[in-house]
């Protein structure tokens, strides 16, 4: 009996079906016996590219020696017993929404490797490229909606630029990169507006002509991942609702000011609009956190020559707190998981340039919304902020947590193009304090 060898598409379909059965129940709004607590429909990942200092954000060490404590102090928050950096007063004032994990630990202190581990939940290996969490969500969610299900603002050039988000999955689950900074005047999504003279009628005609031409080729069974990308692009460019979701002009100046004028603020505002429009995974990519020198300028004050000199942490504080309160006011916080992380932390001791170097052994992540119980700190670093003192949490555990919160069973099996089964997450345990 002849055996037909399964092709890439077959496996993608098998993977998709398995996923629909096993994991997506709750995302699709159907009853799911195993994930009763799931509330998150969407996830906004605020990625602090370069590796944010845990000591200057979520895990200050005010009582340590000068070289560990660094230039800033700690402040109390709205929950007794929790202190965070004095650079984050707005977040501190509403910490009841936020859970902080202070015992993240990873062995990988190089940007590209650390990024791969945090973004995928798997340590990098030359044998297999793992997909980013956002691409897995997109894979399990594909074919739905006019806006791509994985959007990166402004792009997903992370970890030095070598990270391939779809990993072993089809390129159609690569994030749609909007390509511009929403904080710049006249921001438009790159190439979303038609070329002069190309009216909608012509877009439709081009699509139908193209299908005609490719139909001739269909007999050849040529596998073309570009097809899925074309169809998604077409839905996007012909959907008024999609165009509206990307248009910040709809927001009042007051709202824009609330998020802050920096890139991270306007990116978060756009992320909120996309989540409102039903996009399941949005990555806000904020650069500049690789602070090897001059923490005071880079993290707090900003460069004096800048139009609006504000450092990274106050910009994050403003954007994050605005996003959380805005989502909350709109009744979206419960169904939107917000995660703030980077690829690692920074060295406990200041270096000679008043900066901190890469430090993966312990660092912090914060989460809010999506059913996460806020106002708690999970795990702790030691007195120097050097190692986990309690309850070590790996990036694999964090990925499993995010999947679980999004209603995706970490045991869901996906398939590589040559048919190898790989679990969505196989190295981690969801953090029980967060997933309930």
């Amino acid at each position: 009996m002849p055996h037909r060898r399964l092709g890439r598409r077959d496996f993608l379909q098998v993977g998709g079906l398995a996923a629909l059965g096993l994991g997506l129940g709750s995302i699709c709004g159907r009853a799911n016996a195993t994930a009763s607590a799931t509330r998150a429909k969407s996830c906004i990942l605020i990625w602090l590219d370069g590796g944010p200092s845990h000591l200057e954000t979520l895990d200050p060490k005010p009582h340590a020696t000068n070289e560990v404590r660094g230039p800033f102090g700690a402040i109390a928050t709205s929950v007794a017993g929790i202190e965070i950096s004095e650079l984050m007063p707005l977040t501190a004032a509403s910490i009841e929404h936020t859970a902080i994990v202070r015992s993240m630990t990873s062995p990988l202190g190089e940007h590209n490797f650390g990024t791969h581990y945090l973004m995928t939940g798997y340590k990098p290996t030359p044998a297999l490229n793992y997909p980013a969490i956002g691409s897995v969500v997109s894979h399990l969610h594909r074919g739905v909606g006019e806006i791509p299900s994985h959007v990166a603002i402004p792009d997903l050039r992370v970890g030095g630029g070598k990270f391939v988000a779809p990993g072993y999955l089809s390129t159609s689950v690569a994030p749609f990169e909007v390509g511009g900074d929403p904080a710049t005047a006249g921001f438009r999504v790159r190439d979303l507006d038609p070329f002069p003279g190309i009216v909608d009628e012509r877009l439709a005609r081009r699509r139908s002509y193209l299908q005609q031409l490719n139909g001739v080729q269909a007999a050849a069974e040529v596998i073309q991942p570009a097809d899925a990308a074309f169809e998604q692009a077409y839905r996007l460019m012909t959907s008024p609702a999609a165009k509206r979701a990307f248009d910040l002009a709809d927001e009042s100046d007051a709202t824009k000011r609330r998020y802050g004028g920096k890139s991270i603020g306007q990116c978060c505002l756009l992320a909120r609009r996309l989540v409102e429009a039903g996009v399941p995974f949005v990555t806000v990519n904020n650069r500049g956190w690789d602070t090897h020198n001059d923490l005071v300028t880079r993290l707090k004050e900003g460069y004096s020559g800048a139009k609006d000199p504000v450092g990274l942490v106050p910009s994050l504080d403003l954007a994050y707190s605005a996003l959380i309160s805005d989502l909350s006011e709109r009744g979206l916080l419960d169904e939107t998981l917000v995660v703030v992380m980077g690829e690692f932390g920074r060295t406990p001791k200041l270096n000679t340039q008043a900066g901190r170097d890469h430090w993966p052994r312990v660092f912090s992540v914060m989460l809010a919304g999506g059913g996460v119980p806020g106002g708690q700190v999970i795990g702790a670093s030691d007195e120097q902020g050097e190692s986990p003192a309690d309850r070590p949490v790996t990036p694999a555990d964090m990925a499993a947590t995010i999947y679980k919160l999004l209603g995706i069973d970490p045991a869901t099996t996906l398939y590589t193009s040559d048919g190898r089964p790989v679990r969505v997450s196989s190295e981690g345990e969801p953090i029980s304090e967060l997933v309930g």
Partner: protein
Amino acid sequence: MMPLGGPKPMRRRASPIYSQPLRGNEVIRSSIIMMAIYPFVLRPLRCVCVLIGCGSLLAAASDGAVDFDTDIVPLLSKAGCNAASCHGSTAGQGGFRLSLFGGDPEFDYRSIAHEFAGRRLNHVNPPQSLLLAKPTGRLEHGGGEVLSADAARVIAEWIEAGAKRSQLRKLDRLVVTPTTFAAKGVPTSFPLEVVAHFSDGTTRDVTDTALYVSQNDAALDVDLSGLVTVKLAGQHTATVRFADRVTTVGATSPFSPAGVSHPKSARQNWIDDPINAKLVALGLTPAGACRDAEFVRRVSLDLTGRLPSPERVARFVTNVDQSKRTKLVDELLASDEFTSYWTHLLATQLRVQKPATDARAAEAMDDWLRAEVAGDARWDEIARSLILSEGDTHANGAATVHRFFATARDEAEYMSEVLMGVRLRCANCHNHPLDRWTQDDYHGLAAVFVGLERGQVVRDTGRGEITHPRTGAAALARIPGERFLTESNDPRDEFADWLVAPENPYFAHAMSGRVWESLMGRGLVSPVDDVRATNPPSHPELLDRLADSFAAGDYKLRPLIREICNSAAYHRSSTPLEGAPNDDRFYSHALAKPLSAEVLADAIGDVTGVTGDYAGVSRAIDVVDRTVLARQLAALGPCLPGEACSVDAVSQRGIASQLHLMNGGLINAKIGDSNGRLHLLIDLDQSTADIVTEFYLLALSRPPTDAELTGWIEAIDSQDDLQGARRTRVARREDFLWALLNCHEFTTNN
């Protein structure tokens, strides 16, 4: 099974090759071990290790000569103790660190016997040693109970005997029988036999102690005892590891059991023999030869990066010369266009880039490369120049290569990837777990290049050193996998001599493999720059013969390309036979190759009659500074400066690319250009039939079929709006051209 030389293995397997349904627990057991030893791929929860038996070790132990390197370390490997998820992690686990997969027994011995003043061993009461009490479950152990009583007894005996690392023997060879296996159907099981040959002349059956990892669990299973089960048709591989050696076993199973008959045309030259043998073994019937028009388009794109002109296509198709295909290959190989395109391909492979802002150095390198290709220079001479060149990079372009890198380590990685097709990178931090490379090799090769001063003038200072991360001392310059270099000679000379020597197993293979990939759409080793013991070629014999032929032909590219282009495999149609299995690696039909960003951009320019402008250069393949392409051709996914690009990379055109192709200027501006071909034809009042036919010939190298032509005339000329008839028809013709430039037949080389 093959008869084995030397003393008989201590345990023989009686079972002949047999076929039976899979037992459920075998699957589960083998997947557990897969996870335990291959943590990067599929890691279990925490440190799940496995209970093992070790008959062979017991025998060794009874000789009273338990050897640390060859008995104890493999035992720890089999139990999963030194996996990256457990104590093999760079940070260790629970304060106890072992080298990854036992790659460094000296380190392991220090950890076990000496660290913390030897507290891990109890010489008075060996079973009470922490080393044994924990993994046997007598003391709490995060990894659980992983050592069997038998294994524990061997370790206890070793401790009892003084816990010495006496290095009684070294592993010389690991012989796996069989190394390949052809199943007649699935599922089929067969047993492996793994025999270790030691330096003291002894041999031992280590089948039970070796580690097995399938590269694809769904297709091939290997259980703890070395029983292999082939589960899917195709060709599959598993790796076998014992002590510091790793090798592979391959199994095939046919897609269709019936005998396959090959027509005579399926063999044109020696290249076809190994290809056809594999097709027969797999029960795959090759597609027939492609049509003349397809051939001329294919070979023009492959050799010159250009579409053939409609005149050339017409001339070729109507030519009745029996050897016209061979002659066309020769004609193209002799053309200037070949030199331009293969210079571009080599520059891509060599990752030519502008060092900082020094455009002149990049241009000098490009000029040098172009002259080498034009003169059909030997690849070994090109490689030598890359390694040895020095001097002013504005005059001596080859020396620019040294300026691509900030450090000698980067240069060592580059040289190994680009010239040897191997990735030494993993061996920066630990001995390579999937190959033979050690940290000595990695840092030793870096030491070869450490003396270079990488300014506009590149010179060898003879100073500088590479710190070996394990010893903290200066790494000794070293030929990877071979020997340390004496201080008296220039290490770069020695490296270059070794690299290009005919007996070097990497050099000719790497380049002939790349040429094969470029022409055939898939590397015999894939990815093409990841040659390693555990990533075997799909057609090992063919790769060897290509490499031999390349070396015998003075390492010249044109003869090698000629041989491949004259094979029946190259001539096959890209349309698989009706009902054929989905074959993406056995060459039963030609693989459709996506056009690279540069070739596609040039093709769009040629078809529309509107040339490009890349900072003054009209063809993208001639651009030296790739930052210009990165900017202008972003939507097509160009090869970025300094990056290793593969055939795969160019096909990743996502949503943003599609938006640009529809809404951006790349295609729209050329279609609508009033001096472009379309509008000139419209101005000449050409009919839709003429326009469609002309663009088909230009873009697809074939006329439209009658049905296609009728369809287009219908679609474009039918008027429901007499008022705006002319304008509408222009728009429709533009849209036809847009679709043509985006369709699969145009954007791939079929």
